[in-house]
């Protein structure tokens, strides 16, 4: 009993630490990466005893201290309670969402089989993800309204319109994956991606559902509220959109939520389309290459390899998010709406139809 509870707590802590630290690291990557893209030097002012660590001290030590010691400002005619609640509501859904994402296969240790997923054997995995991400609208709407500021409210209204619109295309784009792997459970979807097509090509989601991947990726960028889909923030039009009136620790929470959302989106893309923790040709006991060569590995090494590969893939997609943010110009509001409703939604519907016909024709 106690051991079981301990295992669950350890898994929860592991995932929380992983997500929050990745979010923090992404903050650093974004500042240094954007500097790299724009041919600048980037954050390098803060240092401890002359050690700046490529801006790590700046973003990981100086920035948090600055945020935590700043004045916590609430607009005089704003709503004090909701103004404080909003950042929590923004951070909450992305963190609980990670409960169903598998970060490894089973770990067999001391006669126990531990499923490397916080909430294993939930037969509604994907639906849980959508349910939780549908709650992430509240953070920006409440924050915007509680600020009692026209710019904030405009940002909040635009943001929720954008998020609700893109949720639909997002949900439909995943249906193809569900139809192919015949399950809603994410661990089973990842296992399904372990088989090989024609003996050499891993049956990853992106191979079987390339259109769904493009649609999902686009909608995921839109859901994370980053350029080119930065309607809720819209720096060039709305000051800072829904978090105009936020400072100090509350702003830091919004900031963390944005990066955590990015990490979660990357993790979902990895899980659904890029094999999750699957390493090509790695089976339960070691590598089985297509040529017939076999390389046996100990169980612990395989588990570590899987978790490491999962983190690496997540990191790769986070970097892709950052690359897109600093490369593409932003959309206008009507362009965002037109893209969502008139292009992505019909494409997602067509993808579901084509997949269904394909499955019937193949007669699986």
């Amino acid at each position, binding site marked *: 009993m106690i051991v079981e509870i301990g295992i669950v707590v350890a898994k929860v802590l592991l995932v929380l630490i992983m997500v929050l630290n990745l979010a923090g690291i992404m903050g650093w990557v974004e500042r240094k990466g954007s500097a790299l893209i724009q041919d600048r030097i980037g954050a390098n002012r803060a240092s401890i005893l002359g050690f700046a660590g490529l801006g790590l001290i700046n973003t990981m030590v100086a920035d948090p201290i600055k945020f935590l010691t700043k004045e916590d400002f609430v607009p005089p005619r704003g*709503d004090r*309670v*909701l103004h404080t*609640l909003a950042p929590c509501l923004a951070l909450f859904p992305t963190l609980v969402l990670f409960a169903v994402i598998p970060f490894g296969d089973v770990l067999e240790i001391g006669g126990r089989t531990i499923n490397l997923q916080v909430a294993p054997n*939930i*037969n*509604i995995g994907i*639906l*849980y993800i*959508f*349910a*939780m991400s*549908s*709650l992430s*609208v*509240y953070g920006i*709407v*409440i924050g915007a*309204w509680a600020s009692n500021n026209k710019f904030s*409210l405009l940002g909040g*209204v635009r943001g*929720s319109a954008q998020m*609700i619109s893109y949720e639909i295309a997002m949900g439909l784009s995943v249906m193809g994956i569900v139809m192919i792997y015949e399950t*809603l459970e994410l661990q089973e979807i990842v296992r399904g991606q372990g088989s090989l097509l024609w003996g050499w090509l891993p049956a990853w989601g992106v191979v079987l559902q390339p259109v769904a991947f493009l649609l999902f990726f686009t909608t995921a960028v839109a859901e994370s509220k980053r350029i080119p889909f930065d309607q809720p923030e819209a720096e060039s039009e709305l000051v800072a959109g829904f978090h105009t009136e936020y400072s100090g620790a509350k702003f830091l929470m919004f900031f963390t939520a944005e990066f955590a959302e990015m990490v979660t989106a990357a993790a979902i893309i990895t899980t659904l389309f890029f094999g999750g923790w699957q390493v090509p040709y790695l089976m339960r006991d070691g590598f089985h290459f297509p040529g017939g060569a076999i390389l046996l590995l100990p169980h612990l090494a395989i588990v570590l390899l899987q978790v490491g590969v999962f983190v690496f893939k997540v990191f790769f997609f986070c970097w892709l998010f950052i690359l897109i943010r600093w490369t593409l110009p932003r959309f206008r509001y009507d362009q965002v709406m037109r893209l969502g409703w008139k292009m992505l939604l019909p494409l997602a519907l067509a993808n579901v139809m084509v997949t269904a016909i394909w499955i019937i024709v193949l007669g699986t």
Partner: protein
Amino acid sequence: MSIELLIFFILAVFLIASSLLVIFQRNPVHSALALVAALFIMAVLFLTQEAPMVAVLQIFVYAGAIMVLFLFVIMLLNPSMPEKGHWIWWGSGSLGAALLAVELISLFLPVHGTKPLGAEVGENFGSPKLLAEILFKEFVLPFEIASILLLVALIGAVVLAKR
């Protein structure tokens, strides 16, 4: 006391507290948010009753979609506070409460030899697969009719909005 019962009582206390907050608050936005919290806790209760599908749909449809609309209407229209204690509010409110109370009490009365509480459930109860099979095989016609009804309402709303 088993852990399930303990969790139920904790959730129930929070559920009742947030439901009371819905009706006892002045600010309509606060009330709407308390309703979101109540719906969310209800979903967790469904989860403890081995109905994960219902729980997720509850969050997805009610807490995630319908309440966002509610919140929007409240925020954008910004209604002024209703006058205190108008007899129509009190009358209709108490009538609704009385009807609900009768309904709730009748739930606990045994009806013609059926077991009042604790019906047995089969394996895979509440799983999406079972639900989909029943919905799309046995009840496919009502399902389609309901969806056409929703479509008609949707088109009607668009037509009215364009006027």
